[in-house]
C-alpha cells in the first residue's frame, strides 16, 4: 500500500465526467507532479484529495485511511493542506493575518508564532510586507504568501495547484526553489502544473493527465526526455 493512493476514481460535475478511473500514487517524502493541459482534470484531482469534490467511484487512501469519511475542513488537522489555484489569499487581510489563518487548526499558540517566523525566514519579502493587505502584493508575493500560509499548519502532505501560473520566469524559479526546500525539510509534495518544464525540474516522479486519466508516467528525468512529452508540453 502506498502512502497516498488514488485508485480508479471517477468524478462527475453534473453530467460531465472530469476524471475517468484515475489512479496514481505518492510515496512519503517524494515530490510528485501531475502535468497536463487545461481541462485535463488536474485541479479536480487536487480537490478530490482535499475532499472538496466527491468521487462517484474508486477510493482515495492516505496513510492507510480511506478518506471518504473525513470532512474537508478536518484535513488540515490531519496534516493535509492545499495551496489552491489562483492563490486565494484573503485580500483585505494583512500578510500576518493570512498566515495566522493558516494556523487555524493549530492549538499551540507558540507553535504558530514560531512557524510564522520560520516562514518569514524562508521568504523574507513577506516579513517586509507583514502589515500590508494581501491584495496589494504582487502575483509572486501572493504565491509565496499562499505557500507560507499552508506551512503554518506543518503539513505532512502539501498539495499545490499551478503555483507558477501568471508568474514571470524568475519568480517561477524562486517559487519552485521554495517548494524544493519545503520538501527537503520533510513535507511530501503533490504539485499540479501546466508548466511542465518547471515542474519536472523539481519533481521525483510525474504523471501526465489527459481527459481525466493518466496517459504517461515515470521518473521526472525520463519524462523530460520523452518525445511525446517534449512535443506536447515542453514547447517542442
Amino acid at each position: 500500500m502506498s502512502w497516498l493512493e488514488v485508485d480508479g476514481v471517477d468524478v462527475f460535475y453534473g453530467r460531465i465526467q472530469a476524471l475517468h478511473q484515475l489512479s496514481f500514487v505518492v510515496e512519503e517524502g517524494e515530490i510528485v507532479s501531475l502535468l497536463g493541459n487545461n481541462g485535463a482534470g488536474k485541479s479536480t484531482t487536487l480537490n478530490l484529495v482535499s475532499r472538496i469534490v466527491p468521487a462517484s467511484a474508486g477510493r482515495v487512501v492516505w496513510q492507510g485511511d480511506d478518506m471518504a469519511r473525513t470532512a474537508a475542513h478536518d484535513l488540515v488537522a490531519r496534516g493535509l493542506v492545499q495551496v489552491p489555484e489562483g492563490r486565494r489569499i484573503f485580500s483585505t487581510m494583512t500578510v500576518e493575518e493570512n498566515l495566522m489563518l493558516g494556523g487555524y487548526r493549530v492549538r499551540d499558540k507558540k507553535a504558530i508564532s514560531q512557524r510564522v517566523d520560520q516562514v518569514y525566514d524562508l521568504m523574507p519579502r513577506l516579513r517586509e510586507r507583514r502589515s500590508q493587505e494581501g491584495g496589494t502584493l504582487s502575483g509572486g508575493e501572493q504565491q509565496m504568501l499562499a505557500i507560507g500560509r499552508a506551512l503554518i499548519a506543518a503539513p505532512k502532505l502539501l498539495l499545490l495547484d499551478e503555483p507558477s501560473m501568471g508568474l514571470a520566469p524568475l519568480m517561477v524559479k524562486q517559487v519552485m526553489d521554495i517548494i524544493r526546500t519545503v520538501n527537503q525539510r520533510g513535507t511530501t509534495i503533490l504539485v499540479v502544473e501546466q508548466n511542465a518544464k518547471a515542474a519536472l525540474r523539481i519533481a521525483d516522479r510525474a504523471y501526465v493527465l489527459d481527459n481525466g486519466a493518466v496517459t504517461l508516467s515515470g521518473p521526472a528525468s525520463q519524462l523530460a526526455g520523452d518525445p511525446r512529452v517534449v512535443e506536447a508540453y515542453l514547447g517542442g
Partner: protein
Amino acid sequence: MTQIILNGLFVGSFYALIALGYSMVYGIIKLLNFAHGDIFMFGAYIGMTCLTVIPGIGSLGIGAIAIVLLISALLTGATGVLIETLAYRPLRSAPRLSVLITAVGMSFLLEYGVRQIWGPDPQPWPQAGRLTEAANWPAGLQWGAQRIDILGGSLTGAQLVLMALAVVLMAVLALYIGKTREGRAMRAIALDKRAATLMGINVNATISRVFFIGSALAGVAGVMHGAYYSSITFLMGFLLGLKAFTAAVIGGIGNLYGAMLGGLTLGLLEAFGTAWFGGEWKDVFAFVFLIAFLTLRPTGILGERVVERM
C-alpha cells in the same frame, strides 16, 4: 440642537445593534435576512415573558432586566441558529431569490406566531422591568430614572445606560471579529469560502456562530426597547428591521463598522429630518436616504473594499 443630536444618537444605538446582525449575515453568506427585525421583536417578547413568569424576579429591580437580557440573548441566538439550519442552509446553492423569499417567509412565521401566542394587542412591559421606573433603581443609582442635563439637552439616566451598553457590546464585537481566531475565520469566510475551508475552518459551524451572535444582539436590543419604551407589539420588528437594513446599507453592508456608523447616522438623519420637516416625515426621510445611497453609493459610507490582483 443638542437635544436633537442626543435623540438621534439614542435611537441610532438601537438601529446600530440590529444593523450589526444584518451586516454580519450579509457579509458571510450574502443573504439579506429579512426575518432579523422579527428576531428583535421576538427577543422583546421573550424578555416580557421572563419578567412575568419567573417567580420573584420583580424584586430585583434593574438586576432583573440584566438577567432577562441574558436569557433573551441566549434564546434569540438559538432561534437564529435554528432558522439558519432549517430554512437557509438547505438553500445555500439555490438562486439568491429563493433564499430571500424564504427569509420573508420566516419573517411572517415569527410575526404571526407571536401574534397567535400573545395576541395582536400591544403589550405593556411589566412594571418591574421598566428602566424609567424609579422604584427599580437601587438607592445609590437613582439617577437612572432621572433626567440628566448634557450640554443644553437632556436624557434620562436609563437612556445613557442603554447607549453605554450598546457601545460596550459593539466594542466587544469589534474586538472579537478583529482579534480572535474565530473572528478571523468569519472574515475569511466572507472573503473566500473555499479558501476558508482549505484552512480547516468549519464553514457551517462558523456561519451558525454568526447567526447566533447577530440574533443575540437583536434580542438584547429587543429587551432594551421594551424596558425603555414600555410597550411591545408583534409588528414592531417590521419597521425597525427595515430601518436597520437601511442603516446597514448607509454604513456599508457587510462591514461591521459600517453597521455601527450607519445606525448612528440614520438616527441622526431622522432626528434632524423630523425637526425640520415635521414628525410625520420620519420614515419618508429615512427611506429617501436608503434609495439615495442605493442609487448613488450602494457600497455605503465605508464601502465594500475589494482589492484583487491576479
